[in-house]
């Protein structure tokens, strides 16, 4: 009971414990394959966070995360490989390029934030991947291989996975801090109003359109950051990676974890979606089937995500599940038109 009543204090404790664990993780687990999974988990949770920020702050569903991830990856790769820039300049520049493209796209597409926006973003991801594949200047369908590693900085060489892990951890924390600061500021309160009721916010004199574009641009730039890191981490990029399907998978992470919790939700969801398929590699071929069934189960029984469901009392959840079962059996017994 004390755990629930002292929610705020225990939340701080949880955050500190999680932070300490993540910082010490590569020292505890000394296996480079596991390090790879941790890094991919952080990239995925960063992308999931951009999705949930757009959802929480602007009330829009963005299926084009892959497009901005891809733009970031391509911009950074081409600046380094063709322009000969060092990674540390290419990273912020690629964030800027992604931000500019996101602004242009957002200004056009956010005029209709419902279904048109969803499908526009999804098709935009496909367009980006088609353009990168069809035009030889962008590497064609083969993409780029041998993307250089980040240059050594302060005596740290990027030879093993551990420096990459700390780099992505720093970038992730940076993005979290930026989002948290924005969310605590006046802009964040406007975002809260917009997501609760856009119409009411509009009557209060808020330019809803402008704040939606702002949320979209900031989140998409973060996706560009993740893309730039991804390109230099895996050292290969191919246009197929960034298509529309990738963006559809990205939305799973925050929803699995809990869409209302935009830092821990994506982390938990990405951890689940990164590690469970790896464990299921034993069953190789039917791995997506099991993942899909797991997804169905979670969405049907825990519609608010894992964290959202845990923050209710467990017996309430159980009662609801048994209600659902009763409902289905009742309905089945009286099936047919009345």
């Amino acid at each position, binding site marked *: 009971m004390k755990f629930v009543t002292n929610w705020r204090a225990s939340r701080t404790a949880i955050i500190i414990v999680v932070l300490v664990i993540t910082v010490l993780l590569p020292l505890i687990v000394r296996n480079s394959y596991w390090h790879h999974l941790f890094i991919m988990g952080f990239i995925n949770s960063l992308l999931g966070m951009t999705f949930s920020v757009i959802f929480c702050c602007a*009330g829009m569903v963005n299926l084009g995360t892959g497009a901005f991830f891809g733009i970031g990856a391509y911009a950074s790769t081409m600046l380094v490989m063709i322009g000969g820039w060092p990674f540390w300049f290419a990273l912020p520049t690629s964030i800027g390029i992604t931000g500019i493209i996101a602004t242009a796209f957002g200004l056009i597409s956010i005029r209709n934030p419902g*279904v048109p926006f969803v*499908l526009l973003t999804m098709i935009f991801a496909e*367009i980006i991947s088609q353009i990168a594949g069809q035009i030889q200047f962008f590497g064609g369908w083969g993409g780029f291989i041998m993307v250089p590693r980040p240059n050594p900085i302060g005596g740290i060489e990027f030879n093993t996975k551990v420096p990459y892990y700390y780099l992505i951890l720093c970038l992730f924390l940076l993005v979290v801090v930026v989002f948290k600061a924005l969310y605590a500021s006046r802009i964040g309160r406007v975002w809260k109003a917009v997501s609760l009721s856009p119409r009411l916010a509009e009557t209060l004199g808020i330019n809803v359109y402008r704040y939606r574009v702002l949320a979209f641009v900031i989140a998409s730039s973060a996706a560009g950051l993740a893309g730039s890191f991804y390109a230099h981490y895996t050292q290969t990029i191919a246009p197929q990676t960034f298509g529309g399907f990738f963006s559809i998978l990205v939305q799973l992470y925050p929803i699995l974890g809990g869409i209302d919790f935009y830092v821990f939700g994506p982390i938990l969801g990405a951890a689940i979606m990164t590690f469970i398929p790896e464990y299921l590699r034993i069953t190789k071929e039917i791995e997506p089937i099991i993942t899909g069934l797991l997804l169905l189960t979670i969405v049907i029984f825990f519609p608010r995500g894992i964290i959202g469901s845990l923050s209710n009392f467990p017996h309430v959840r159980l009662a609801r599940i048994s209600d659902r079962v009763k409902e289905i059996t009742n309905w089945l017994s009286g099936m047919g038109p009345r």
Partner: protein
Amino acid sequence: MTLELFFQLLLNGLIVGMLYVLIVLGLDIIIRVCNIYNFAHGYIYALGAYLFWFSYVSLGLHPLFALLLSLSLMALFGIITYLGVFNALQSRFTPDVPFSHRLLLSAMLSVGLMMVVGRGILVTFGTEDRGAHSIFPQMINILNVRLPVEKLIIVMASFVSMAGLFFFISKTKIGRALRAISSDREMSSLLGVNTTWISLVGYTLAVVLAGFAGALVVPVYAVSAEMGKTMFFISMVVMMIGGIGSYKGTILGGIIVGQMMSFGFQFIGGLSYLAIWILFMIVIIFKPGGLLGEVRD
């Protein structure tokens, strides 16, 4: 370009367009009746194609019986997925649930279903392309233009099934209930329409339509595991170009995109996908509700 090539391309485009129309009509029904944005519909179409291929080629049945078998299997699949998956969501969609939550939850569920169906097809039927002998290999000569009979029959079959669908929706009692639910779910429930049953009918109808489209494609094109993914994007694009909830718009959009696919692949190859996506962007930017539809939500 000879006249014959032109007419053959036109016919190909019409076939492809009609397939899109059949699939998108199903998608439209699911969205309007069940409020579900079904991302798995492309893979359901692929499942229909594989089931027809299985019963026609592997079991060696007569095409009509094969069609019957595959469609009844599809209906069974539709009933199972609706009761097992989407019905749980349906009861949660009260009127005060905002549109974005509805979209998100249905998208999640259908993505899960998509993973299961897509990989299930791959595991059961293998990765290589499957083809079948054409059922009517003759050519017909109309005004010195040689056209394959089979493709004409496919176009006719899709027109007939569309006419049947429109008759069903506009004249029968269940069709009226479908329309009532799509305009106001709560009100029609108050007036004594069993919403769960009617939603089940609508969903199953859509799945059977997708299965029919899949069966039509088997004798003409190769069946591959990739077709579900391609169809998913194309069907969304056709739906939006025409406008959600406008049957005329859906037919118009399907024919436009089908002709673009047919002529595009002849002349610009793989770039035609890019052309279609860009056409979609232009249409949606200037007419967000589609050519003949209205903006919803």
